[in-house]
């Protein structure tokens, strides 16, 4: 598993499968979220509003709990990227093998980000 922020590549090798991703930056540098041209990133902010489901094995009362990733998006640095993704060997389970592309700066897009993250402990779901 390797994240190379100089070459803009990311790879995963697991058993017989692999993921190979390359990203083409659409801006020369990361810019603050809210800068001109970053409005489409708001779809990622929206997606992170809701909590995620956790299944702590030693929970005494409720098997299913929740947790949240709380990002400091107001101080995040981002830039849109074009993505080329290759999935081999069933490594992403029911996600089909194949080549996928994503033209970065759109609501269904691809972005590079640098942000502070707080991951909460588990709590009872709302």
């Amino acid at each position, binding site marked *: *598993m*390797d*994240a190379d*922020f100089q070459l803009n590549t*990311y790879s*995963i*090798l*697991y058993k017989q499968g692999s*993921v190979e*991703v390359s*990203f083409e930056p659409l801006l020369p540098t990361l810019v603050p979220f809210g800068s001109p041209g970053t409005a489409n990133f708001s*779809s*990622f902010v*929206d*997606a*992170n*509003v*809701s*909590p*995620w*489901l*956790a*299944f*702590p*094995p*030693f929970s005494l009362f409720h098997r*299913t709990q*929740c*947790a949240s990733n709380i*990002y400091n998006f107001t101080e995040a640095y981002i830039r849109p*990227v074009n*993505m080329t*993704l290759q999935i081999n060997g069933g490594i*992403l*389970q*029911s*996600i*089909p093998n194949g080549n*996928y592309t*994503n033209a970065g700066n*759109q*609501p*269904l*897009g*691809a*972005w*590079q*980000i*640098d*942000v*502070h*993250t*707080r*991951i*909460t*402990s*588990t709590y009872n*779901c*709302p």
Partner: protein
Amino acid sequence: MSIKVFLLFCLISTSNSDINCRTTAWWVLQPFLKSDLQPFISQSGEDLTFNSSNPLANYMNSDEYPVYFEFNQQNRCEESSLPPFVANLTQQTFAEFKLEIPYLIRKNKTFMLKPLVYQNSSLNVEATRLVYGLPTYLVS
């Protein structure tokens, strides 16, 4: 090995506290067929349904649904409840991939499902499984 056990103990014993990280990453929202995603939902054992009026529905076909890929490098992750010296000692930096399905409906509320996680730290794989119960696998 004893250090690893100590670190794991620290992480699990402080599972009621938050974790602070600096995330450098690429994030992607990509549409996939709902039929490809249904196995993840079924495996969760939860009564989850696709939200057909999710905010991204207008950007894809009706038989598709957004998947959120996180290609992360988590830097200097620390438990917030530990004394600074111990937090610094147990600090973790690692790569992780997360496959997520957002905007799912459960009991009329919206949730995200994380059905697949890869990490390159055995310590964090164990902690993620024990603290959050996520299906997490170690890759070198």
